[in-house]
């Protein structure tokens, strides 16, 4: 059925467009040569540049693709003296390496004074992108083709339709074919006067999530001029169906947002679940351990500028070591002296947090540091036009779970977990049983801090890397640990995720601030019901 | 029992002519012991994660009695005291203080206010306070916030504290903070706190643990002297001690009463010997 329809459409469109001839043939007018156009590029105004791009497309077609790409990337320069157009790659040392735009041949180094950029602005960039889309539709990869068709959906003029038809004929399949059919349907709905044809078109469009489809249907429904009631009703129905699906994916998206926020909370809190939850140290410097981890990421990227893609992988163990050793130092230097006075730790660690913040300020300047997002962490996984999942959030969610699992394994499988708990419950007796309490304390605090550092690596991908980074997470972290039940790792996990999801489900109707307030009040009330958190320690001893 | 039945049962219970509704009962009133029984425990059940610590336990204690409670470790003695004093909620059953007071409807502070005092198995005293202050805080009297703000130690009260101090032999340590006492001294202090409160019913959990033989004797005398005016329930594993004070002995086993009677009866009970005393007691 579908296939048949498909054929029908193609034929219809081809017939519709036949008289105008082949689009490719048309784009080769005699006279203007690409070279002469190129010559005008240096020094052209932005407006003029736009015109030149149009001429270049006509003159050069697909051959001009490299030029457009370089231009889009903002790497197109010209040599001031010779007006030669070149592509430039910047190096770390702030010098410029030139190469030929088309041939890729190296042209040597330039200084910033010798060359000048060919300026592009927003408008030009979108023109370039459209141009590229047109070129890609016929010559690009599957993905590029899809992007190209999607881009054209918003503007289904004759020229674009001709291109689409040509693409159709040159043989496309799958997603691209579906989109082209969709485009044809949209055109048909728009241009046809025959009720059946239009209904048919609506049939194709029904349930499709592309915004252009929805917008067109919406326009139709709102259009007071539209006389055809059947068409209008059908459009309304199609629209409803679309809304329904959007609603569904909206919920899904909300859930993902919630989980993602939860994973951030979890990451921030998980180290605290050890230093505070297990050891009982009210660790106000926890946030600064996270901060150190984030700065470690920055330093690693500075040290290995060539390996941005792997920088995070290197940063994870590095941050663990850095924050972990600082944690060990703090434990050995300060916390150790506070045994039996758990509440006093708040004072000492508060002091330490001030010192660490200022230290970072003195060493790295008070400005935020730039942490680059490796390409595999950027962008999103597009599931459909209304639902996509950003990679960084996705990876961080997985990362948080992995860290959590690793921690559980460490605490369950090694004797450390057992010893920590013993020490925190009765230090003297643990000593008398041969537990090296000092070692255990240092290791545990180091572990908690190290994990905070690792969290910092992840957070550096989401937020500022600056001296205040830690402060923004410390309160949430305590909240999560307490909500889950102090001393219970699983509680921290569930606590983090439920706070995240609750927040995100309230946000759309309440706004970010109110949602936050309501979650806090809810938390306070919840603790009245369960004074020891979600997963309380039970039994006689816990009283 | 289905929930509906259960509910109906409760409703019927609420309608009974011979009882007043709980919320109509005034909270503070003297215990009615006209039937000469001060404590009724019936069909008590307590379980922890499926483990039955008390199992359909029934126990009646007469007014003015000195009752010894013995039983294997883990038999549920401490749990029983927890239920009486409101620390642990029971799954089912009833606990009445005299004729008129339903213990299960009160919380710890109220129960203490009704005149039930307790000494814990592990001595718990206020470590930051002096011995004297510990006793002062335990003195019988109204426990409201305002009263506490204005309270002044009266002459008789001061005498009472002195008296207790001499009974527990901590006169010299009166200004020492309780946290610095040795284990045995804390035991004594806690007994002293009980005395100062002058409760109607004393629950004494292992009072002589960690005491020398002579002190044990003194404790025994003390408890005997208290009986009559007060009702005393003593839990102890020291058989010599129990023998020296016991009139009626109740043996608990696995959360239920195994035997009850005079010391001799109990001592010769086969079951008791098997689970508790051992062959050559």
């Amino acid at each position: 059925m579908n296939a048949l329809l498909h054929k029908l459409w193609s034929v219809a469109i081809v017939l519709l467009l036949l008289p105008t001839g082949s689009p490719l043939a048309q784009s080769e007018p005699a006279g203007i040569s690409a070279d002469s156009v190129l010559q005008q590029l240096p020094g052209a105004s932005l407006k003029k540049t736009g015109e030149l791009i149009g001429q270049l497309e006509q003159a050069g077609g697909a051959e001009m693709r490299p030029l457009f790409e370089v231009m889009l990337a903002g790497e197109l320069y010209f040599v001031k003296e010779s007006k030669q157009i070149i592509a430039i790659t910047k190096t770390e040392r702030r010098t410029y390496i030139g190469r030929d735009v088309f041939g890729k041949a190296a042209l040597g180094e330039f200084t910033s004074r010798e060359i000048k950029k060919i300026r592009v602005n927003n408008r030009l960039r979108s023109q370039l992108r459209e141009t590229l889309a047109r070129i890609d539709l016929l010559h690009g990869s599957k993905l590029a083709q899809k992007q190209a068709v999607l881009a054209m959906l918003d503007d289904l003029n004759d020229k674009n339709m001709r291109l689409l038809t040509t693409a159709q004929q040159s043989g496309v399949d799958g997603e691209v074919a579906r989109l082209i059919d969709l485009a044809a349907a949209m055109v048909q709905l728009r241009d046809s006067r025959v009720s059946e044809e239009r209904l048919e078109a609506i049939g194709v469009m029904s349930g499709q999530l592309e915004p252009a489809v929805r917008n067109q249907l919406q326009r139709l429904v709102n259009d007071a001029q539209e006389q055809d009631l059947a068409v209008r009703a059908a459009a309304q129905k199609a629209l409803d169906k679309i809304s329904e699906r959007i609603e569904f994916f909206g919920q899904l998206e909300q859930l993902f947002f919630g989980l993602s926020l939860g994973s951030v909370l979890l990451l921030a809190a998980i180290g605290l679940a050890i230093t505070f939850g297990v050891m009982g140290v009210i660790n106000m410097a926890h946030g600064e351990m996270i901060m150190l981890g984030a700065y470690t990421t920055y330093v690693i990227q500075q040290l290995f500028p060539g390996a941005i893609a792997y920088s995070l992988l290197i940063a994870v163990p590095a941050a663990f070591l850095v924050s972990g050793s600082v944690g060990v130092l703090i434990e050995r230097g300060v916390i150790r002296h506070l045994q039996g006075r758990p509440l006093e730790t708040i004072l000492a660690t508060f002091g330490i947090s001030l010192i660490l913040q200022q230290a970072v300020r003195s060493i790295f300047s008070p400005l935020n540091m730039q942490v680059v997002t490796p390409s595999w962490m950027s962008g999103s996984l597009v599931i459909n036009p209304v639902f996509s999942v950003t990679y960084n959030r996705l990876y961080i969610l997985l990362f948080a779970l992995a860290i959590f699992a690793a921690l559980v394994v460490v605490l369950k499988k090694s004797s450390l977990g057992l010893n920590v708990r013993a020490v925190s419950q009765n230090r003297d007796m643990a000593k008398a049983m041969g537990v090296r309490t000092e070692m255990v304390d240092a290791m545990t605090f180091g572990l908690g801090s190290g994990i905070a550092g690792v969290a910092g690596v992840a957070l550096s991908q989401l937020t500022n890397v600056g001296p205040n980074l830690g402060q923004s997470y410390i309160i949430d972290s305590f909240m999560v640990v307490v909500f889950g039940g102090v001393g219970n790792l699983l509680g921290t996990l569930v606590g983090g995720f439920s706070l995240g999801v609750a927040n995100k489900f309230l946000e759309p109707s309440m706004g970010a601030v109110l949602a936050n307030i309501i979650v806090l009040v809810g938390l306070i009330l919840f603790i009245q019901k369960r004074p020891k958190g979600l997963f309380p320690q039970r039994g006689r001893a816990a009283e | 029992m289905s929930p509906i039945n259960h509910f109906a049962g409760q409703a019927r219970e609420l309608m009974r002519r011979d009882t007043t509704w709980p919320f109509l009962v005034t909270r503070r009133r003297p215990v009615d012991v006209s039937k000469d029984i001060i404590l009724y425990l019936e069909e008590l059940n307590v379980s922890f994660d499926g483990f039955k610590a008390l199992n359909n336990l029934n126990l009646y204690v007469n007014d003015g009695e000195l009752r010894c409670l013995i039983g294997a470790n883990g038999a549920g003695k401490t749990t029983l005291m927890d239920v009486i004093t409101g620390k642990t909620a029971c799954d089912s059953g009833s606990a009445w203080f005299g004729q008129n007071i339903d213990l299960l409807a009160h919380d710890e502070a109220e129960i203490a206010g009704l005149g039930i005092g307790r000494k814990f198995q592990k001595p718990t005293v206020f470590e930051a306070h002096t011995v004297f202050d510990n006793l002062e805080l335990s003195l019988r009297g109204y426990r409201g916030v305002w009263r506490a703000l204005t309270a002044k130690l009266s002459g008789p009260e001061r005498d009472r504290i002195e008296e207790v101090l001499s009974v527990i032999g901590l006169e010299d340590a009166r200004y020492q903070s309780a946290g610095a006492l040795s284990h045995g001294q804390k035991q004594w202090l806690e007994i002293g706190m009980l005395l100062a409160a002058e409760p109607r019913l004393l629950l004494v959990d292992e009072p002589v643990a960690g005491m020398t033989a002579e002190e044990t004797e003194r404790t025994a005398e003390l408890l005997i002297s208290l009986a009559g005016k007060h009702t005393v329930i003593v839990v102890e594993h020291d058989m010599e001690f129990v023998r020296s004070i016991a009139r009626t002995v109740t043996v608990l086993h696995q959360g239920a009463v195994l035997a009850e009677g005079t010391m001799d009866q109990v001592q010769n009970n086969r079951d008791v010997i098997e689970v508790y005393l051992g062959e050559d007691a």
Partner: protein
Amino acid sequence: MSVLNSLAQASSRLLAAMRQPGRGTSWLVGILLVVTLAMSAANLLLPADSPFYVSTYTITLMGKYLCFAMLAMAVDIVWGYCGILSLGHGAFFALGGYGMGMYLMRQIGDRGVYGNPDLPDFMVFLNWQELPWYWFGMDQFWFAIFMALLVPGTLAFVFGWLAFRSRVTGVYLSIMTQALTYALMLAFFRNEMGFGGNNGLTDFKDILGFDLQADATRVALLLVTTFLVVLTFLASRTIVQSRLGRVIVAVRDAEARTRFLGYRTEHYKVWLFVYSALIAAVAGMLYVPQVGIINPGEFSPLNSIEVVVWVAVGGRGTLYGAIVGALLVNYAKTRFTALMPDAWLFALGALFVIVTVYLPRGLAGLFGRATELMYRRPDTGKDKTTRDDGLSVAEVGA
């Protein structure tokens, strides 16, 4: 030489007196009163170029410190004596402050920049048409004071009643108080709340008809503050020395045991919490006219934590410790931020760390130890033996 000697003697006598429950505190009260009175006189009576002249800057600074001292006392009463570590006392302080701020705001009348007699400037400029209902009556001084006590008092009561009745304790309680103040902070940041959002309330003109910028008014405010600090100090001392105080300490150390003695510990805690919240609110009320601004930043959890830190520095569980701690830390902050603006956090942080590690019971503990060394009594047996960890009961759950 003899001067030195007598100085040493005097100071050791002072130290000894500080340790005695009764007399030490009267020393503190005396010093406070004398110092502030002398400062006031020096400010008002001496010419500005006299070497003994005390600048208005110092007067306001002192006033601010004393407000903080009061706040610290409030925290110490619940934390030091009852073991309720409140990380949200800033909320009561700020609410009191907002009450006073609203009164002062209404006093501006039509002298605001837009000349609107009813609406404060920030409302005019966000296009509000009429005064929200909760602003009514706030132009009456006594009503404003009443509200500034009622609201934080009620909040403390409701919060305390809920929390203590369901036996929320330890860190759970601490974090709940933190959540409370955090939620309030977010709420007050919202411009829709009608409290001026982030900018808060500011640009006050006069109080009870007295010009807030006049030296005499500032001095009067300082004196009122001192008087109230002394008053709350004496009141609190009476409380902690009464049987009530001992019950409260008993609750701190062994709450369950206290309950088995028949004390309704939750009543005691709620009562104390409300009392402490009221002190905090009064401190906030005094604070606002002296610093000239109240904004949601005062609700920030970190502020409340800082208060706890002052108390810890001074030595919790002693009232004068809280006062001394607040004065000292804030003075240090003032000095450090001017002397080494780029590195003062190092100094302050180090101060905190050193105090915790080397002065386990804060400065009050230091006094205690100093006098102990000087007046070591031969008869140690009778001495109240105090252990170093005497106060550190494990409020933190394992």
